[in-house]
C-alpha cells in the first residue's frame, strides 16, 4: 500500500516535471537561438512523463505497450528523419491525424470501459469523453483530407455541391445533439445498448464532419485549416485529461490548443477574413469572379533572364518576395545562390515574408532556412513593408495575391483590406511566374500591369538558374 503511494507520488512528480519542461521548452521557441535547446528540454519532459506512466500501478501487462511503442517508433523515426522540408505541410497535417487517432481510441475505450463499470461514466466524465471523441474523430478525417489536398491526391480547389451547407449543418447538429443526449442519459444512469449506439453514431458523424469541413476549403486557405486542426487535436487531448483525471494531458493539450488557436487567428487576419468565412466561404467562387476587375486592354512587359540579370546584378538593395510558386518549383536553393551573388557584388538582399505565403504558417521561412539563408535576412510583413520605398528591385517569386495593390486601392476587390506586401513601392519590380494565371483569389493582379513591372515567365527554378549564370558573367 505504501509502495503504491510512493509510486503514485513519483508518477505525479514526473508529470509536474514534464509540464514545466513543456512550458519552458515552448518559451525557448520565442527566440531562434534558444529554440533548439528548448525543444530538447520538452523532449526530455516527454520521456519523463512516459517513464512515470510505465510505473503506473494500473498497468498489469506490458506486451501491448511494447508492441505499440515499437511499431510507433518504427514508423515515426524514419518519418521524422526522412520527410523532406518541402513536404512539411503534408507531414504536419498527417501528424494531427495520428494524434487525433490516439485520442479518439482512448475516448472510445474509456467510454466502453466506464459504461460497464458500476454507475456508468456520470455526467462530468461523459462530457469530457464525448468532447474528446467528437473533436478527435473530426480531426482524424479533417487532417486526412488536408493531407490529401496538400499531397495532391484530393483536388486542391474548393469542392462544393448544391445543398452542401444544409447537409453539413444537419450532420453537425446531429452529432452535437447525440453528444448532448449522451451526457443527459448517462447522468441518469440508464444503461443498455442505446447509449452505445448513440455513441457509435456520434463518432461516425464526427468523422463525416471532418470530411465535409475541409472539402470546400481551397489550397491557399490551408494555413488556417492546418492551424485549426492543430488546435482541435490539442483540445481533444485536453478533454482526455479531464476524462481520466490526468493533469499533464490537460496542460499539454491546453498549450497545443492555444497555439493552434493563435495561429489560426493570425492566418485569418493575414487574409483579412474571419474564421467563419474561411470555414464556410469556399473563396474564389462566384462572388470573387463577379467583382474582380478585368485585365482586358492592359499589357504586361515580359523580359528575358539576361535583362533581369542586368537589373538585379547592378541593384544595391533587393527585396525578394517568395510565395507558394517558389515552393512548387523548389527554387529556394537557386534563390539563395542568387542572393549570395548579389551580396558578393556589394548589394543588400532581404526576404519579405507574408504570413500566409505558402501552405502553412512559416512555410517560406523553413524552406529558405533549409537552403541556408540566414534567418536574419528573413523579415515579416510589418518589419519590411516600409523598406520597399528604398529598394531598387523587388523580385517576386511565385507570389501573387499577397502583392496585389487592389487590396489597398480597390474597395470592390474581394481581397480589399487584406494586408499586403508593398511591392509596388519599389523602384522596379520583377515578377517570376509560370504564366498569367490568377492567384488563389481568382483575381487579376494590377501589379503585373504597372510600368515598373517586368514579367519573367517560366519555372522559377530554371529561370533563376539562368539569371544566376548571367549575373556571374556580368
Amino acid at each position, binding site marked *: 500500500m505504501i509502495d503504491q503511494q510512493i509510486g503514485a507520488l513519483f508518477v505525479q512528480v514526473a508529470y509536474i516535471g514534464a509540464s514545466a519542461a513543456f512550458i519552458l521548452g515552448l518559451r525557448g521557441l520565442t*527566440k531562434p537561438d534558444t529554440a533548439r535547446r528548448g525543444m530538447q528540454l520538452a523532449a526530455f519532459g516527454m520521456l519523463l512523463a512516459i517513464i512515470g506512466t510505465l510505473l503506473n500501478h494500473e498497468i498489469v501487462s506490458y506486451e501491448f505497450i511494447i508492441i505499440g511503442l515499437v511499431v510507433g517508433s518504427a514508423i515515426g523515426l524514419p518519418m521524422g528523419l526522412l520527410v523532406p522540408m518541402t513536404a*512539411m505541410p503534408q507531414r504536419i497535417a498527417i501528424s494531427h491525424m495520428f494524434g487525433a487517432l490516439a485520442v479518439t481510441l482512448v475516448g472510445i475505450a474509456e467510454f466502453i470501459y466506464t459504461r460497464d463499470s458500476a454507475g456508468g461514466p456520470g455526467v462530468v466524465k461523459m462530457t469530457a469523453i464525448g468532447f474528446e471523441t467528437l473533436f478527435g474523430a473530426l480531426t482524424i478525417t479533417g487532417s486526412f483530407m488536408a493531407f490529401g489536398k496538400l499531397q495532391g491526391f484530393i483536388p486542391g480547389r474548393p469542392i462544393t455541391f448544391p445543398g452542401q451547407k444544409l447537409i453539413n449543418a444537419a450532420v453537425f447538429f446531429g452529432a452535437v445533439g447525440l453528444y448532448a443526449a449522451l451526457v443527459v442519459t448517462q447522468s441518469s444512469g440508464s444503461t443498455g445498448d442505446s447509449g452505445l449506439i448513440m455513441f457509435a453514431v456520434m463518432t461516425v458523424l464526427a468523422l463525416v464532419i471532418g470530411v465535409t469541413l475541409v472539402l470546400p476549403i481551397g489550397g491557399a486557405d490551408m494555413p488556417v485549416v492546418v492551424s485549426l486542426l492543430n488546435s482541435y487535436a490539442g483540445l481533444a487531448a485536453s478533454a*482526455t485529461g479531464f476524462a481520466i483525471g490526468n493533469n499533464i494531458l490537460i496542460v499539454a493539450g491546453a498549450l497545443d490548443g492555444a497555439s493552434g488557436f493563435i495561429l489560426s487567428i493570425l492566418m485569418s487576419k493575414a487574409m483579412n477574413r474571419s474564421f467563419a468565412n474561411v470555414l464556410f466561404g469556399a473563396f474564389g467562387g462566384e462572388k470573387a469572379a463577379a467583382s474582380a476587375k478585368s485585365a482586358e486592354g492592359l499589357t504586361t512587359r515580359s523580359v528575358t533572364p539576361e535583362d533581369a540579370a542586368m537589373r538585379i546584378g547592378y541593384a544595391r538593395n533587393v527585396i525578394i518576395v517568395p510565395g507558394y510558386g517558389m515552393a512548387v518549383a523548389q527554387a529556394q536553393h537557386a534563390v539563395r545562390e542568387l542572393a549570395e551573388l548579389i551580396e558578393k557584388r556589394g548589394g543588400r538582399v532581404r526576404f519579405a515574408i507574408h504570413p500566409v505565403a505558402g501552405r502553412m504558417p512559416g512555410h517560406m521561412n523553413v524552406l529558405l532556412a533549409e537552403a541556408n539563408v540566414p534567418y536574419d535576412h528573413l523579415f515579416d510583413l510589418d518589419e519590411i513593408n516600409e523598406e520597399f520605398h528604398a529598394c531598387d528591385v523587388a523580385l517576386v517569386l511565385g507570389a501573387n495575391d499577397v502583392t496585389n495593390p487592389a487590396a489597398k486601392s480597390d474597395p470592390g476587390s474581394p481581397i480589399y483590406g487584406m494586408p499586403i506586401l508593398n511591392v509596388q513601392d519599389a523602384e522596379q519590380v520583377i515578377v517570376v511566374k509560370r504564366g498569367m494565371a490568377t492567384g488563389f483569389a481568382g483575381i487579376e493582379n494590377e501589379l503585373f500591369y504597372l510600368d515598373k513591372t517586368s514579367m519573367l515567365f517560366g519555372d522559377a527554378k530554371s529561370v533563376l538558374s539562368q539569371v544566376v549564370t548571367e549575373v556571374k558573367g556580368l
Partner: protein
Amino acid sequence: MTALLTALGAAAAIIAATSGGAPTAAVSTTLIDAQIVEVYVFLLAAFIGFQIITKVPPLLHTPLMAATNAISAISLVASIVIAGAERPLFINIMGAVAVAAATINVVGGFVITDRMLKMFKKTEGPK
C-alpha cells in the same frame, strides 16, 4: 478578463449543478473539488500558452506547429494505461494502436522539430 471570469464561474456552476445528482454528499464534494482543480489547471495552462505563443516570431511558426504537435502526443500517456491495464482484450488492442499512433508523433515530432531548428542559422562572421 471579465469574460473569462464569467466563463470560469459558469463552468463551476455547471459542474456543481451536474454533480449534485451524485448519490452521497461526500462523493459529490470530492468530485467537485477534483473537477474544479482540473478546470483551474486547464485555464492556467491556456493562459500561459497564449502568453508564450504570441511571442513566438512568425519565423518559427512551422517548428512551433511541429513542436506543439509532438507535445500534444502526450495522449501517449493515456494510451499506455489503456494498453496495459486490466481490461478486456479488445480495449488493450485499441490501446496498443493508440500507443503506436501517439508514438509516431512523439518520436517523429521531436526529431523533425529538431531537424528544422538546426537549419535556422544567423549570418556567419562580421559583415
